[in-house]
């Protein structure tokens, strides 16, 4: 099956599922050119405009099945030369309607949905005439499997969203995908589409790539796609066009490809998620299995996964990061935001330069930077130019756009250059006194309504603004590094922050293309506070005698994007220690200092080896064990112990954060961890996993989310 682009449409927690958005299968006869006979053309249409993707739920599938059964009978009577399926503009179909799936409590319902998909799609392969999919638009999951069920496929050259994203969410392509695809395009390419691309941040496939992969048989221009698909059909029927089909891969090729994919999965996931592995097993069996056996196996796996907490957490997380993220929780009314027609940035360092480019690019307003001396100004300008030139060289922006961005950014030593800004962001050294002085100076320069923001990651925003005449206009805008890529911004509100300033911060974050999570002015906000808690627990274990190599792999069962030492290396050890120190000061012994890490920093050493250039995963450098002393004393934690300490620590911290009101609800923590730290969908971010693994009950004596919100209710 499956996966709509937006399981987003799944029910919000605590709400009843919305009714299925039923897609109708409309059938019309078309006379083929050249006297080739009658084509029955099926249009999938949910009767709504292009903002509401066509999806396939139980009622829609039943309607399609009925239509196809009718056509099967007509084909048997010799009334038809071919059957084709296409969609309303922009969509063939964006996959299964998972609305009902997210709240299913009975495995029989899950199996019924799996079987209905097969019973419907397989008809396309069991007609007396050839069947054609005219892939006019988005074809995801079940939508693409529908096309795979046909004998032939044309695709519009404008289509960029072809994918089997099931394993990304926690399912498998189980409406024929795992069986049909490897037999059509070869096992290697099938695994690329079923396993590799979903794992690569759910990468989509374009029409041109699809042709190269053998996923489609012809790419036709969008201007008259349907007309030319019909002409193409007539030519195929008449034998003027012969579509080559590769023979089935041999056993050795098949097994080697599956084994290779398993190795790559292990290297990345270490078995942390079921779905990709289950898909791999189905593909492995597809070479020799017959259709009935293979489809039954897909039904089994789908049933099991639909009834799994992993999928439910995935649906919850996807909904959270797409549909629900569009309306940030706790944000003041949008109308209160100050219009931002120019932006000032204090500092011209690395972070400031990244911010300037982002603002110039997305907000399309003038940006003025200010730093202390000519040398820093020159360096800042050079850095900005390098960034912009790099984007232009990669083709991400046009030369004109590069010119526009560079022309809209100015750097000087004069604070008065920032006088006209509606928003000033400070990005200077993380020293409270420095930041206080910057704000105090700014207050004498900027306009009365100008909003002042700090990009601090660990300091108190309230203290920064304590001595100002107008602390109500100060907020935190915490971006993550690299600024251009990371989708999250933490909008920090102090007790003194006014609605106008906070609304402006949310509006700017949105205009910059970021998702904003509103947080209270507490140390480390959400993401750094939890990441550092995790690192602190790992560091404490290592200081307590756990070997670094054991600690480094201890968290693998979670399937996080990287190991703890790789994370430290990415952030930079000195930066990590700076934040740790700051949190230690503010939050106490839950964030113990690490003499070993301090020494590594003083010595300027790496914690993981230099990249080998082959993209291999970076484990900890065993050589750093020396700073922590001989491992293995009594009481030292083993791997399971480290994992337990980390999870217990995270649970405790989440409980405290909710008590302190850092965010209004647990789901905001998940949103922040998914977008700010890349934590995986199958954990639901964090709190669904803490609930289903029992940690929240054990440590806090309560669940963080209601049963059924991000797991299978029991």
């Amino acid at each position, binding site marked *: 099956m499956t996966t709509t682009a937006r399981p987003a449409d799944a029910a919000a927690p605590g709400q009843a599922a919305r009714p299925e958005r039923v897609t109708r299968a409309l059938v*019309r006869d078309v006379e083929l050119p050249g006297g080739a006979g009658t084509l029955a053309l099926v249009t999938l*249409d949910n009767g709504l405009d292009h903002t509401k993707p066509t999806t396939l739920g139980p009622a829609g599938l039943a309607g399609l099945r009925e239509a196809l059964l009718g056509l099967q009978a007509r084909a048997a009577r010799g009334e038809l030369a071919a059957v084709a399926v296409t969609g309303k503009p922009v969509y063939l179909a964006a996959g299964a309607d998972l609305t009902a799936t997210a709240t299913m409590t009975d495995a029989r319902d899950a199996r019924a949905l799996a079987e209905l998909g097969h019973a419907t799609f397989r008809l396309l392969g069991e007609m007396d005439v050839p069947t054609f999919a005219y892939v006019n638009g988005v074809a995801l999951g079940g939508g693409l499997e529908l096309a795979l069920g046909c004998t032939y496929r044309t695709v519009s050259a404008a289509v960029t969203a072809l994918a089997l994203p099931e394993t990304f969410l926690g399912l498998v392509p189980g409406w024929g995908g795992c069986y049909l695809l490897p037999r059509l395009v070869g096992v290697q390419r099938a695994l690329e589409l079923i396993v590799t691309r979903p794992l690569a941040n759910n990468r989509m496939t374009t029409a041109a790539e699809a042709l190269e992969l053998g996923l489609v048989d012809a790419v036709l221009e969008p201007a008259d796609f349907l*007309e030319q698909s019909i002409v193409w059909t007539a*030519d195929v029927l008449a034998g003027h066009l012969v579509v080559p089909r590769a023979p089935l891969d041999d056993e050795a090729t098949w097994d080697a490809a599956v084994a290779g994919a398993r190795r790559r999965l292990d290297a990345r996931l270490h078995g942390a998620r079921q779905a990709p592995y289950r898909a791999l097993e189905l593909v492995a069996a597809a070479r020799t299995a017959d259709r009935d056996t293979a489809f039954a196996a897909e039904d089994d796996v789908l049933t099991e996964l639909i009834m799994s907490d992993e999928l439910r957490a995935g649906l919850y997380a996807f909904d959270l990061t797409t549909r629900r993220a569009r309306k940030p929780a706790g944000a003041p009314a949008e109308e209160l935001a100050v219009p931002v027609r120019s932006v000032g940035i204090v500092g011209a360092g690395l972070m400031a330069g990244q911010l300037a480019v982002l603002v110039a690019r997305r907000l399309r307003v003038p940006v003025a930077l200010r730093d202390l001396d000519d040398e820093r100004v020159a360096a800042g300008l050079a850095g900005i130019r390098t960034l912009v030139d790099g984007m232009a060289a990669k083709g991400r922006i046009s030369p004109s756009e590069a010119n526009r961005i560079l022309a809209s950014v100015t750097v000087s030593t004069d604070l008065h250059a920032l006088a006209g800004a509606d928003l000033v962001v400070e990005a200077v050294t993380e020293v409270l006194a420095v930041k206080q002085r910057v704000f105090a100076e700014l207050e004498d320069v900027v306009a009365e309504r100008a909003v002042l923001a700090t990009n601090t990651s660990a300091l108190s925003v309230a203290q920064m603004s304590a001595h100002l005449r107008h602390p109500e206009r100060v907020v935190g805008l915490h971006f993550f590094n690299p600024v251009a890529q990371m989708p999250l911004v933490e909008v920090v509100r102090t007790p003194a922050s006014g609605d106008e300033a906070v609304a402006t911060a949310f509006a700017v974050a949105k205009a910059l293309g970021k998702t904003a999570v509103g947080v209270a002015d507490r140390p480390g906000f959400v993401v750094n506070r939890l990441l550092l808690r995790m690192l602190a627990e790992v560091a404490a274990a290592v200081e307590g005698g756990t070997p670094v190599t054991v600690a480094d792999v201890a968290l693998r069962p979670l399937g996080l994007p990287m190991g703890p030492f790789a994370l430290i290396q990415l952030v930079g050890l000195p930066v990590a220690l700076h934040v740790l120190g700051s949190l230690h000061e503010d939050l106490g012994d839950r964030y113990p200092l690490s003499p070993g890490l301090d020494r590594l920093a003083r010595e300027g050493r790496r914690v993981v080896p230099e990249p080998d250039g082959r993209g291999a995963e970076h484990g900890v450098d065993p050589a750093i064990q020396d700073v922590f002393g001989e491992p293995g004393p009594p009481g030292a934690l083993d791997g399971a112990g480290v994992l337990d300490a980390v999870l217990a620590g995270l649970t405790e911290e989440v409980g405290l954060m909710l008590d302190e009101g850092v965010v209004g609800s647990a789901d905001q923590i998940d949103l922040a961890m998914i977008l700010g730290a890349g934590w995986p969908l199958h954990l639901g971010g964090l709190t669904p996993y803490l609930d289903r693994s029992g940690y929240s009950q054990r440590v806090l004596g309560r669940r963080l989310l209601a049963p059924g919100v991000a797991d299978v209710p029991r």
Partner: protein
Amino acid sequence: MPSASSRPTVRPVVFVDGVRTPFGRARPDGLYAHTRADDLAVRTVRELLRRHPQLPPERVDEVAIAATTQSGDQGLTLGRTVGVLAGLPRSVPGFAIDRMCAGAMTAVTTTAGAIGFGAQDVALAGGVEHMGRHPMGLDADPNPRFASERLVGADALAMGRTAENLHDRYPALTRERADAYGVTSQARFAAALAAGRITADLVPVATRDPERGWGLATADEPPRPGTTLDAVRGLPTPFRAGGRVTAATSAPLTDGAASCLLAAEDTAEELGLAPRMRMVTFAYAGVDPAVMGLGPVPATRKALDRAGLTIDDIGLLEVNEAFAVQVLAFLDDLGIADDDPRVNPDGGAIAVGHPLASSGVRLMTQLARHFAARPDVRYGLTTMCVGLGQGGTVIWENPHHRDYDGLAPATSATPTTAQEQQR
């Protein structure tokens, strides 16, 4: 030293090919009720390019697309939007043009003028009218001076009434003759369709209906085959109580598009584009707006004069049938019988429909098809009347005629693929 410019040249212009969409009834349940006008025009341009792969698209110097109502999906400078939507290179310019019913004809003569003058080599010219989305005269704001100074009669803006006026002016133009003419038009079109002379000029159009799904328009919707004199005799006269003009003697309100490919004869030779017609000359003329249907008379006389020909030299005439009475007035003036086989041998707009600004190219495409079948005919003409009292006529030469001295026309080849068979 400054260099001298090259001077304008006069050179022959050939009609390489023409296609049209199937025509649809301009009704809420018509063929194109849910299809955009610009999309119809795009299909015709795409088809011309597809039929002539030897024409590098960047060699197209102009895209001129006509529409009477240039707003909504017929707005935004159609020639340019259609070029972009059809996938022509961005370097190919385009413009929109309007002379009401003679829009496409004017697109042809205007671009042909530029080609003959040497300013351009290759042009796409055509027109579109979605009368379902753009009813005639909707949103028009006639200057009050038309009425206050009696510049035009009160009837001049209502085409049906101008047709009634023609009956008034020429008592010899009876309802009986008009009815007979209308019935003949239907019969001739039906015969041509059955003989396979119509479909080859059509480009199928995918049509989406939110309630019925996608379909494919492959045939004209307006024709009423089997129409008999008995059936039309008693029809009401909607334009005047006790009048003479009926639905059976008027072109139906129609949605459709038509386009053609024009080239300088030397460019056609260079690119291997075979001519189907060569332009001889053209003329437009004005008449009293109250009898706009007379327009073809002075336009044709003017064109014949310029060409140095008489009506006896013209072996085939494609006359747009806005109304039967207007064709009959033209024929009477030229001394041609109502049922002369030279005139609209495959029927006309009364049967197939008249999507205003596209009909001019429909006439040309149809004439080109006759030419191929009638090498004995040397000259033909296309003519039409225009609202507010105008007429337009283009005279064409048949490259299949033995005395033709220009670039040779194509000889027929056997189509192999469905795409070729569509031609």
